[in-house]
């Protein structure tokens, strides 16, 4: 008998009481979603900015390698998406369109349709996600409701920059992935 059969057989042989799955209430938040979202991103060590502030920031930075996949900022791209994601290693800035954000924790949903290379939001030195204020939901419950039966090979909630506190619990932003996250709220 295969291990698969052994394991399943062992489980089937155990007397267990029947249990029911609970229905999940539709927990919501109190307060203004935009405010809550901004505070959540800040708590996760990200930043939220408007279009103008973002433009000022980009022009002050003098990045020489930018990939922008967000329509309003397409002109900022300095090079084409490479076929091999390893070539993204020295990418300084990726600008991605976010699907929607979650006000309770700042998480932003991306999937394969925003990520031609799944590694893009991780490997880039700085990450910018463009998000419409209209596209905010209260909590993760509404978030999964919204994702629904969407079928994507990969989906990602990104809520901040790469960070760690593994050395004496001191927070350091910029572990292996993006060293910063900026959300441009349109």
């Amino acid at each position: 008998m295969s291990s698969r059969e052994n394991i399943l057989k062992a489980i089937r042989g155990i007397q267990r009481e029947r249990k029911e799955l609970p229905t999940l209430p539709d927990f919501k938040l109190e307060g203004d979603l935009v405010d809550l979202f901004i505070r959540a991103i800040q708590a996760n060590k990200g930043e939220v900015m408007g279009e103008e502030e973002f433009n000022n920031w980009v022009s002050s930075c003098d990045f020489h390698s930018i990939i922008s996949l967000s329509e309003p900022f397409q002109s900022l791209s300095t090079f084409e998406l490479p076929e091999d994601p390893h070539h993204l290693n020295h990418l300084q800035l990726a600008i991605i369109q976010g699907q929607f954000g979650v006000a309770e924790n700042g998480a932003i949903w991306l999937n394969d349709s925003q990520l031609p290379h799944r590694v893009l939001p991780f490997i880039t030195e700085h990450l910018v996600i463009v998000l419409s204020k209209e596209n905010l939901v209260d909590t993760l419950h509404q978030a999964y409701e919204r994702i629904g039966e969407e079928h994507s090979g990969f989906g990602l909630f990104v809520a901040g920059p790469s960070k760690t506190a593994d050395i004496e619990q001191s927070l350091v932003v910029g572990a292996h992935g993006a060293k910063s996250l900026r959300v441009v709220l349109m």
Partner: protein
Amino acid sequence: MSHPKAASQFLKDHANSLWHDETLWMVREKRDAISKTIPEWEELRNLASQIKDKVLSNLDVYLENFEANAQKNGIKVHWAKDAAEHNQIVLGILREKNCQAIVKSKSILTEECHLNPYLEKNGVEVVDTDLGERIVQFLQQPPSHIVMPAIHLKKRDISALFHEKLQTEKGNEDPSYLTNAARLHLRKKFLGSKVAITGVNFGVAETGEFVVCTNEGNADMGVHLADVHIACMGIEKIIPRRKDLGVFLRLLARSATGQPITNYNSHFRSPAKGKEIHLVLVDNGRSLQLAREKFRNSLKCIRCGACMNTCPIYRRSGGYSYGSTVPGPIGSILSPGLDMKKYSTLPFASTLCGSCSDVCPVKINIHEQLYEWRQEITKHHGEFGKGLSMKLASGIFKSPLAYKISGSTMRKAIKLLPKGLIYNPLNVWGKNRDLPEAPKESFQEWYKKNRG
């Protein structure tokens, strides 16, 4: 080494044990603060517990659904009855891909299976990519905490270690500087690995997808740059529906570190074009634990580590004092199921204070299971010998009658004898504590005189 021995050694460096206690207490305070911003917190715990109840009552069906859906999505599913088979499966994939170096993100399961030494013995270089795990890997130590693997180390230790391993400046203890050195070192590893291994936080039966949560982004850096992703998953990690993730992801990071969510929460449903995902489903004692009714719901654990941070014992004895892959309260109810003899002192490394049960996001009755393990372990007392101290079985607590008789004898003894001569348990008691002053008469004697 027994827990009491290891604990007293850890306590000898008082400054260090105090730091350990206070640092983990701070993490618990962060968890308390954030959990109190969620009005429905206790309801979420109930829901999570109920969902896991359902999973455990229907695990065979969910596993089959999960497998079928994952296969439909192009994921290759493997089954391992134990650690040895798990390790062989992983090595088999590596051999097939002709791969001699891999990156691996945090997976308690692979620690449990001792995958690293097995692969290394077979000529594979394994690089743990979580910063804390890389640190302990350099030191050839296991993690001392499931969420904060290097919490037992101080920055001066890490500075010295990185100076040796990564040629950082001698004496530079700045966490940002050290983290950046690890970033540069690991970036090369990410770029050069054809195979990446991750653990799994949740497997969704309804979709066949699985979720991996990190703050560092190390799991994703590894798997998206590699050709092959191997995900190792305990069979209890299943949840029924995608929307159940809403409940668990709301609880997980808040319970673990007091943050609202981990910064990266990746949902893997099918491999990217031209790539492969292998999923290894591992039993390794889980179906046995499922069969033990009193201990069944220990399998609800989502590995947040909150019970370690709150445990007054763990904070003062350190993760290594447990000698088990998963330390702390949850480890002390899981480990005896794997090897009762080896871990026989762990369920006694507790005052049954119950803080672990109240902090647990899936409401495992941890302290009650510690009590139940004690009842099991003492049945095998003879076989286990000295590991479980004989003091427990003898001395003043032998029987109610003996206790009763010894009560009055004891009062007299305390009055008459110098402290050093009072017999053993009291001797231990008296090392650092005075005994209460013996009263003239017991309450019973007083009552007969005054109310009789």
